[in-house]
């Protein structure tokens, strides 16, 4: 058999013991190193030793959802960044792009995910949903209809829902600061 190590071109430094990190972990470390979040977003790691599971808190400082505190869980699998992170909202929120179970309708979390995207792109994308709810990609059809038909009424309903009120027979979680 060919002595394959003789095909190595240059000598590298000796004894390079590398910590046993998976490619996904390394990529997450890199993503988090580069993460520069605006003051409206904070991360929380329940177990700082496990960087693959954390929550993101968004407190929009403008728009219809201003005044609310919204929490999302991030679960990153060993397939990252080939697979997108799994993101859910932990509260029941009246929003066209969130369903009552916490599923999020954001294209880069599913059909438009690419490995060149990173955690920052996902976080910015989610925050954008609170600044510009998109009635054309509805996950909560009633909320989307509401927004499309009567923006003023929709804003009132959002405000009511954020106080823990009931909209169209559905009671929402109180999310005010």
């Amino acid at each position, binding site marked *: 058999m060919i002595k394959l190590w003789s095909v*190595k071109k240059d000598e590298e430094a000796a004894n390079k013991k590398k910590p046993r990190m998976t490619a996904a972990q390394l990529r997450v470390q890199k993503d988090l190193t580069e993460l520069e979040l605006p003051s409206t977003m904070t991360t929380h790691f329940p177990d700082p030793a496990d960087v693959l599971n954390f929550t993101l808190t968004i407190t929009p400082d403008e728009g219809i959802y201003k005044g609310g505190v919204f929490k999302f869980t991030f679960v990153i699998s060993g397939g990252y960044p080939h697979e997108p992170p799994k993101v859910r909202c932990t509260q029941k929120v009246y929003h066209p792009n969130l369903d009552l179970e916490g599923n999020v309708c954001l294209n880069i979390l599913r059909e438009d995910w690419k490995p060149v995207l990173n955690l920052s792109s996902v976080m910015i994308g989610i925050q954008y949903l609170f600044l510009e709810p998109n009635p054309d990609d509805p996950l909560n059809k009633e909320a989307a209809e509401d927004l499309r038909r009567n923006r003023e009424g929709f804003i009132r309903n959002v405000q009511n829902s954020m106080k823990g009120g009931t909209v169209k027979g559905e009671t929402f979680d109180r999310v005010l600061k």
Partner: protein
Amino acid sequence: MTAAVLNGVPNGIASSSSSSSKLASYLSDETRFASIDKILDRKGPWTDERFEGGQGTKDFLRTQSKILVIGAGGLGCEILQNLALTGFNDIHVIDMDTIDISNLNRQFLFREVDVGKSKALVAAEFVMNRVPGVKVTPYHGKIQDHPISFYEQFNIVVAGLDSISARRWINATLVQMAQEDEEQLKPLIDGGTEGFKGQARVILPTVTSCYECSIDMLTPPTAFPICTIANTPRLPEHCIEWASVLEWPKVHKDKKLDTDDPDHIEWLYQQASARAAQFKIEGVTWALTQGVVKNIIPAIASTNAIIAASCCNEALKIATACAPYLNNYMMYVGNDSVYTYTFEHEKRPECPVCGGESLTAEAGRYWTLERFIESLTNRQDLQISKPSLSYSKGALFWPSPPDVFEATKPNLDKLLSDLLDEEEGIVVTDPALPVSVNLSIKYVDAEEPAQ
């Protein structure tokens, strides 16, 4: 050809005396390798200058080399067959799966009575029965459960996997082995198929581009917009995804969906069928349900045969140096015709597995971690300002995010030599680095701690 080889002969063949003498004469008949010998006895026009040929090369192939096959499925069956018939004699195979009835159309080492049994065990048994003299050692289980020392025993690793995560794992493991000790450079021959398409590649860890280098080339798993699934399904796949992505967590709360559990698939199938009926969509079947949730792309027997043949061809060339090996990526497209394209996939400098520099950092034995990090940020050749450091136990010191910073801050005041074992490496990332730097520490003094 002595005891070691006969060990591999299953009892079925060697038991009766007449068949054992028949076996002995078969094994001693050197002409059974006549066709392979033709390329091992003399040089060809493109043969590597290091090729010696003759008995030494044959002995290496037939009595010394040890080859590991990962996966005993569609590709694995073909690979095992080819390697055994090529003259590899000490073959090891690992697979965590058991045989399913749907495998039998192409995984030809299995029969109906084998359904439910370990793929690795049945495949090994079959090959040893069919090709007397060959020893195949099976391992039923996950590749991740074997330590690095397990992989050190092999000369070549051939992977015929359908799982991206398993491929990434073996790739990262073999790259790390070669980084730590270049004599542990094990060529990885990776075969993969998807329907009528496939690829075979030769990865020389740390020398050529690795599997991770090309991860961006992969098509991400098909996913449909979640709002389409929720509101406007048009395809049977939309109904199945509705059942698995939206309905399962809603109804089963924290119970995780197990795509290997037939009861779970049945539940999804029932839900998806009901939704399909509601939206007048046709085509939801049990098999499609399983295919969508497990992201199965139909396997084509001929594609497997072509890719496996290419992989085994490379294994023979690397083991014997009888011809130049593939450099380094062959893709095959059989959709419309038979098309292959071979190119050199280049190493990606920012590859998280094989990219990134390896540097040695000098440090005093009594330095604190803080002082060590300061010395890193002062290095001209690194140009980093806000490094995150990890070691074997996880984060060593990360300046952000805040929770990880708080958890790792106490390490700053600790002595480097208390935190790290001798020879233990550190992975450093920084916004200024394309990927990461692997640091190994060299203690240069024995000064006493400052009072």
